[in-house]
């Protein structure tokens, strides 16, 4: 504490204060002394520490030198180790060379054994051992053989090759003998030796030839058609022949699957087998096509007679497609192939299919099927058209029922050929024929019979109704209108159904591999597009229906016009009013009942249209008549009843009926000033309101003009 602070803190003027200050000073002095002595004592330790530090420094220098020495040692050791490992590596190499030498020595020993062994084994008819020796020779490194030759030994390869070829000759001879005996076990046993002597392909050829000769007779047996007149006889024979072919192909596949390279051996075997299948199938199909072509001409006009041949052709084509699908699935089933090998194998098989004869046979079968199917379709539809026009009104069977039954059957059969192109072509043809039916209906519906629908005439002109005429043409006309309506719906339903059912085409070809994937998508699009072509037929039917409805409207127009005039007639007897106001709804009820009963699908649209015709004419007539209040009241009452009827029975015309009711309400006004109460807001445009009011003889034109609307 400084002196000034002391002086401030303590009152030094008094003794007591001085004493206190002194005490304080003394206390501080003691503290300072203590601190000083402390510092002094520390100086001693510091000195000691400095000494130790300098000693440590010298020691560190020694340690550093030691460390340097140690590092040098480690370096040297590493260099040594490196030297050692290089030596080890050299040793390793030397050891592997020794191993190789040993192998070659073994090879050389074996080589002598082999070339001698083959001869003895052949002599002993032990072909398995002989083939084993050859296989051993083939697995030897060429280097060993070369080395043997270099050592001056007579070229062992020559001996070995000679032995191998002798063995081969023996095997081939034995194989031929066995195949003559049709000894399957011997043939298969011998076949297995060929891959061992490095002649797998020759073996496959021999084996495939053996199978092919068996297949040829099997196909001939299967393809024999006893009674060609029997329905489906040829298709059955074709099925048997193709099954025989498939069985032989499968037999070859099972045997070849174990021998590399299976992915080239299988197509190689197929190349031998396929011509036999082709020859058999071609013969059967040619017979079938000529037999069934003759059948076509026989009973002229009887389309049903061609159905059995049609089914047979479709079935035959489907069988051929099935056989192709079977071939395409083979590589997939051979499990020990890699994906790439499977693909290669499939491509080879695809090439064989594309180039083989039955591909063209299948195309010809399909062509004949389609030609015959077109004939069937045309004839059947002709017949349906003829029948439907003959039985006027008799509702036994309808044209649309008949033609759609035919179309569905034909489309199903088209799909059953197993060919997308076939199904598409049939869909196209069916669409064309349905469109033709739609057009035929349209022609028949062009002119309706008189009074197609009943509408009683208005009461004041109650002339005796014409004696009821023949109802038949009327019923027929309405029935045809209904048919046109349902034809349109059925055409669309048929298209959907066809697309659904055609899915089977892709299920059948399933597993055809990735290559067919793009083709499948294209095929689906193609089929969908052809099915959509049935929409044109739906359009034709719809056009026929629209034409019929328009004709019905025209036919009813005179009666409707008479009613329109009666509706807005200004001169009416008060007494009859209530009865008379109900006459039009009653007449319309008759019409609506008849329409709903006979044209269930289009009645509502027709009624709305008819009512619109009636209202339009009534509006016209109203603007030409003159009314007093009484007349206006009558009109208002009649129109209100009509509007109520429209509300319940023809919602489509409700608005228009409301507008006419509003106009009629104007005609029934007591005073011009009441316009606003009588008129629902925005019911009629102002100009129209003035026009209607002007028809009242007792309203002045100036007053009407002055009205604020």
């Amino acid at each position: 504490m400084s002196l000034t602070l002391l002086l401030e803190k303590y009152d030094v003027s008094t003794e007591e204060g001085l004493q206190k200050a002194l005490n304080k000073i003394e206390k501080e002095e003691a503290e300072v002394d203590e601190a000083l002595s402390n510092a002094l004592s520390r100086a001693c330790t510091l000195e000691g520490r400095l000494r130790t530090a300098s000693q440590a420094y010298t020691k560190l220098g020694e340690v550093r030198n030691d460390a340097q020495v140690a590092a040098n040692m480690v370096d040297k050791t590493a260099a040594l180790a490196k030297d050692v490992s290089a030596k080890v590596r050299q040793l390793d190499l030397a050891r592997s060379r020794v191993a190789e030498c040993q192998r070659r020595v073994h090879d050389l020993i074996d080589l002598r054994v082999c070339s001698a062994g083959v001869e003895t084994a052949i002599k002993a008819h032990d072909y398995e051992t002989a083939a084993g020796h050859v296989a051993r020779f083939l697995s030897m490194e060429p280097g060993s053989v070369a080395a043997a030759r270099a050592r001056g030994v007579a070229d062992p390869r020559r001996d070995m090759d000679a032995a191998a070829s002798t063995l081969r000759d023996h095997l081939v001879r034995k194989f031929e003998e066995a195949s003559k005996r049709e000894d399957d076990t011997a043939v298969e046993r011998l076949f297995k030796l060929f891959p061992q002597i490095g002649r797998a392909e020759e073996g496959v050829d021999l084996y495939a030839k053996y199978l092919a000769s068996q297949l040829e007779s099997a196909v001939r047996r299967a393809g024999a058609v006893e009674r060609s007149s029997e329905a489906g006889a040829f298709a059955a024979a074709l099925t048997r022949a193709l099954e025989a072919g498939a069985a032989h192909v499968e037999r070859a596949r099972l045997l070849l699957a174990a021998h590399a390279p299976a992915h080239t051996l299988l197509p190689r075997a197929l190349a031998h087998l396929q011509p036999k299948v082709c020859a058999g199938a071609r013969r059967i199909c040619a017979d079938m096509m000529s037999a069934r072509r003759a059948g076509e001409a026989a009973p002229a006009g009887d389309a049903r007679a061609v159905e059995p041949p049609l089914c047979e052709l479709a079935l035959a084509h489907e069988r051929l497609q099935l056989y192709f699908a079977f071939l395409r699935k083979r590589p997939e089933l051979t499990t020990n192939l890699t994906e790439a090998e499977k693909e290669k194998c499939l491509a080879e098989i695809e090439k064989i299919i594309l180039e083989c004869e039955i591909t063209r046979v299948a195309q010809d079968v399909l062509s004949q099927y389609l030609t015959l199917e077109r004939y069937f379709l045309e004839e059947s539809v002709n017949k349906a058209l003829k029948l439907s026009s003959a039985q006027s009104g008799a509702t036994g069977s309808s044209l649309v029922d008949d033609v759609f039954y035919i179309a569905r059957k034909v489309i199903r059969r088209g799909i059953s050929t197993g060919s997308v192109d076939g199904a598409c072509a049939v869909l196209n043809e069916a669409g064309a024929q349905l469109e033709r039916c739609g057009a035929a209906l349209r022609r028949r519906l062009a002119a309706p019979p008189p009074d197609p629908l009943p509408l009683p005439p208005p009461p004041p002109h109650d002339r005796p109704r014409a004696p009821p005429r023949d109802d038949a043409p009327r019923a027929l006309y309405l029935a045809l209108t209904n048919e046109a309506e349902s034809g349109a719906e059925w055409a669309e339903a048929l298209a959907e159904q066809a697309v659904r059912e055609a899915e089977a085409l892709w299920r059948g070809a399933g597993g055809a591999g990735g290559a067919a994937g793009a083709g499948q998508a294209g095929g689906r699009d193609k089929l969908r597009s052809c099915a959509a072509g049935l929409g044109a037929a739906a359009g034709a039917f719809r056009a026929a229906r629209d034409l019929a409805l328009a004709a019905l409207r025209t036919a009813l127009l005179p009666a409707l016009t008479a009613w329109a005039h009666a509706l807005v007639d200004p001169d009416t007897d008060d007494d009859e009013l209530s009865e008379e106001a109900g006459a039009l709804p009653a007449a319309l009820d008759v019409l609506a009942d008849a329409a709903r009963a006979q044209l269930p699908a289009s009645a509502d649209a027709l009624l709305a249209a008819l009512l619109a015709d009636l209202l339009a004419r009534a509006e016209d007539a109203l603007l030409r008549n003159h009314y007093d209040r009484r007349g206006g009241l009558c009109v208002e009452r009649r129109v209100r009843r009509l509007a109520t009827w429209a509300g319940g029975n023809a919602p489509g015309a409700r608005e228009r009926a409301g507008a006419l009711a509003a106009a009629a309400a104007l005609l029934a006004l007591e005073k011009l000033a009441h316009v606003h109460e009588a008129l629902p807001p925005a019911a009629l445009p102002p100009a129209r309101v003035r026009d209607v009011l002007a028809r009242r003889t007792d309203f002045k034109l100036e007053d009407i003009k002055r009205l604020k609307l």
Partner: protein
Amino acid sequence: MEDYKFLFKVVLVGNAGVGKTCLVRRFTQGLFPPGQGATIGVDFMIKTVEVDGEKVKLQIWDTAGQERFRSITQSYYRSAHALILVYDISCQPTFDCLPDWLREIEEYANNKVLRILVGNKTDREDREIPRHIGEDFAQRHGMYFLETSAKEAENVERLFMEIAVDLMEQAKCKELPKYDGSLGPLNGKTTSVNDSSCCLRS
């Protein structure tokens, strides 16, 4: 779902090997596949083009030329909006068959169908049918005429675009122009096509 305003079906017919598939491939995929195998049945491709800012979808049916597929291909004539009849300018027999093709078209196709005669393979040196012979034939039968090369991509785009434009005009007019006279508006068009192609060539 699909964004287009018009859909037209275009069917290509003509003898085997005249280059129908190549024309279609050139137009739809922009490539010329050498060693194209024979078409089997009918192939189907789609290309959407734009005409006056409106999307037009062309559904192109590429038919097989071989006789054995005739019963399949015939079924496509009826719904076609345009039929392209193709021959090979370096192969007289393909030209000689044209009347047979026309008979087939008469029998199976809609009489309002747009018909175009195309002489393909103008890149070939060994021309056998001079241009004017083809032109005359087209004119006599009320068809458009165009010579193309699928290999050199010559006139291929134009062929299909002209068809799209023409069909769209027809569709827009709704009331189809009276083609029965066959030498009416068609003939005028034919010359205009020929004129412009002459300009292109010179």
